[in-house]
């Protein structure tokens, strides 16, 4: 049954995933090409000096892309289910709804993590040809809260979309949006190090919340 759910999710989201991979690879390629052109145009010594002395990492354009991807995936995944209450079919499958909804959430979260891992790996592997390991690691630490923000964006959007009542949907949004905003308080390099455990906690908490929305749906809240 779970296999069938994964297959259904693949059929539903494959186009979007292809598009997301293209956009992500495109932006990463753009960032790397612009870094290369800066290294060639301004000189490697000067670029390193700027990156070290002025705390510039040249990846700021990446900031909101994981969030946009996470939110779009959640909308593409859950809006069709909620629009004509197709989710009722899923809830009537001969497995518990926690397993079916959990499988759907798991699917998207794993795919998002893979996508973000591809981003970070390509960025790190190419950057380390031109930059010392300290700057590559710093770039990763700077991007990491944005990726967590993408996962938070996915789970908060799923929580809001799956909620059957508009009033509660607004409340969910008012609680969820600031939690997502926590990942974007500053673009200063590597400033989120002490915050990572708290962001992971927030992520674990929000990943559970779509189940509560479905629970309310099952209770017949309209």
């Amino acid at each position, binding site marked *: 049954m779970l296999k069938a759910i994964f297959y259904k999710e693949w059929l539903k989201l494959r186009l979007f995933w292809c598009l997301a991979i293209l956009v992500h690879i495109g932006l990463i390629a753009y960032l790397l090409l612009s870094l290369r052109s800066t290294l060639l145009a301004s000189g490697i010594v000067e670029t390193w000096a700027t990156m070290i002395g002025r705390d510039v990492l040249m990846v700021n354009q990446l900031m909101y892309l994981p969030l946009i991807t996470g939110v779009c995936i959640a909308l593409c995944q859950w809006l069709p289910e909620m629009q004509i209450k197709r989710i009722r079919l899923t809830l009537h499958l001969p497995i518990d709804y926690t397993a079916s909804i959990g499988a759907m959430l798991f699917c998207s979260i794993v795919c998002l993590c893979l996508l973000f891992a591809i981003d970070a790996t390509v960025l790190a592997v190419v950057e380390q040809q031109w930059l010392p390991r300290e700057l590559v690691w710093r770039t990763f630490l700077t991007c990491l809260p944005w990726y967590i923000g993408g996962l938070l964006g996915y789970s908060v959007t799923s929580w809001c979309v799956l909620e059957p009542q508009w009033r509660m949907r607004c409340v969910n949004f008012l609680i969820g949006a600031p939690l997502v905003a926590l990942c974007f308080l500053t673009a200063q390099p590597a400033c989120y190090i002490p915050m990572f455990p708290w962001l992971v906690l927030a992520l674990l*908490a929000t990943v559970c919340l779509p189940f509560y929305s479905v629970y309310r749906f099952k209770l017949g809240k309209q």
Partner: protein
Amino acid sequence: MKNIQSSISNLKYLIIVLGLIVLAWLLPVLYELLSPRTDRMPFVVYSCLDSTFIKFETSNKQVRFIDFRGQEFTKAQADSLLPLFSFRQLVAEGRLPDSLYGVALTPKLIQQNAFHFKTSPKQLNKPAVGLYTMLESSSGRVDLQLPPDVFRLTDDGLEFIDCETNTVNRAKSLSFSRELTKHGFTFPVQLIWGNGTTRKDYDNGFLLTDANDRLYQLKMVKGTPWVREIIVDRQSSNPKWIQVFTLEPANRALIGFVVDDAYQLYAVRANGQLAHIGIDAYNPQEMQISIVGDLFHWTITEYTATDSRYYAVDARTFEQVACAIVPDPERPLNQRIERILLPVRLRFTSWRTQLIAPNINDD
């Protein structure tokens, strides 16, 4: 199955907790937006002529010059009382004194002996890159040039990385590490500070401390390492250093400042001697400091969480000449109301650090 159902129904408590956290964070932010804080620190300079501090207070876009006894001055009077601070204006008006304390005053002499050093906990508490630029201190050229490499600190030395090839320059790394070891330096480096910018007149290199808290100066002279131990001339045991700063003032009289774990501030003179600066305490993690130096005196201002401390010290001996501690004014009504209305205020940014972390009631 029933267990899972009841766990899911209990998720409403998680939503309530998350909601409370969001409220504890956003309500103080909204309150601050509605009643912005207007407290501004006045700029203060010691007047050697009047032996008092004169503060520049800005209100309604007007600058008022008031001394700590409450006497107010006109702009022209303030210029006269601060001849070394306002020398450009006095030169333009032909009012610069010929000499002061037996020293013939020239604009060049005044300019050479003026410097401004300023730092705050927020500037210090940020994640370090871990890479440093060692400029050539004696290139024979007027302008400083960026070197073709940067260096990192390792457990047993310095490691120079060539920028063009992104590979370690073993010969240079070994040469600098050996030179430090030859001078008694024990790796790893504990504290290090240098100004990697080329926008300065000359280069004093780096001040650094070793594993035994001994203080050194390191710079590159004609491509080779130049090391000097800064000797602590004190009967007591070697102090533990908690902060070092390197400076390049125009008169070349100083290498930098260092702070020990008793929060005492020292100046490192150009000849490598350490001189205690006559102020009570400076905790770089908690206080914002500003040092405005001139030919005769330094005005040192410290902003702490509870007061502002103003010191004047002699520019040669660093002995305290004057001191004023001004407690912060009572919190304005809107802040007192905020504390009553919002007893738990959650923040993720702080005046102490650039790091993002949760802080409760850290105003």
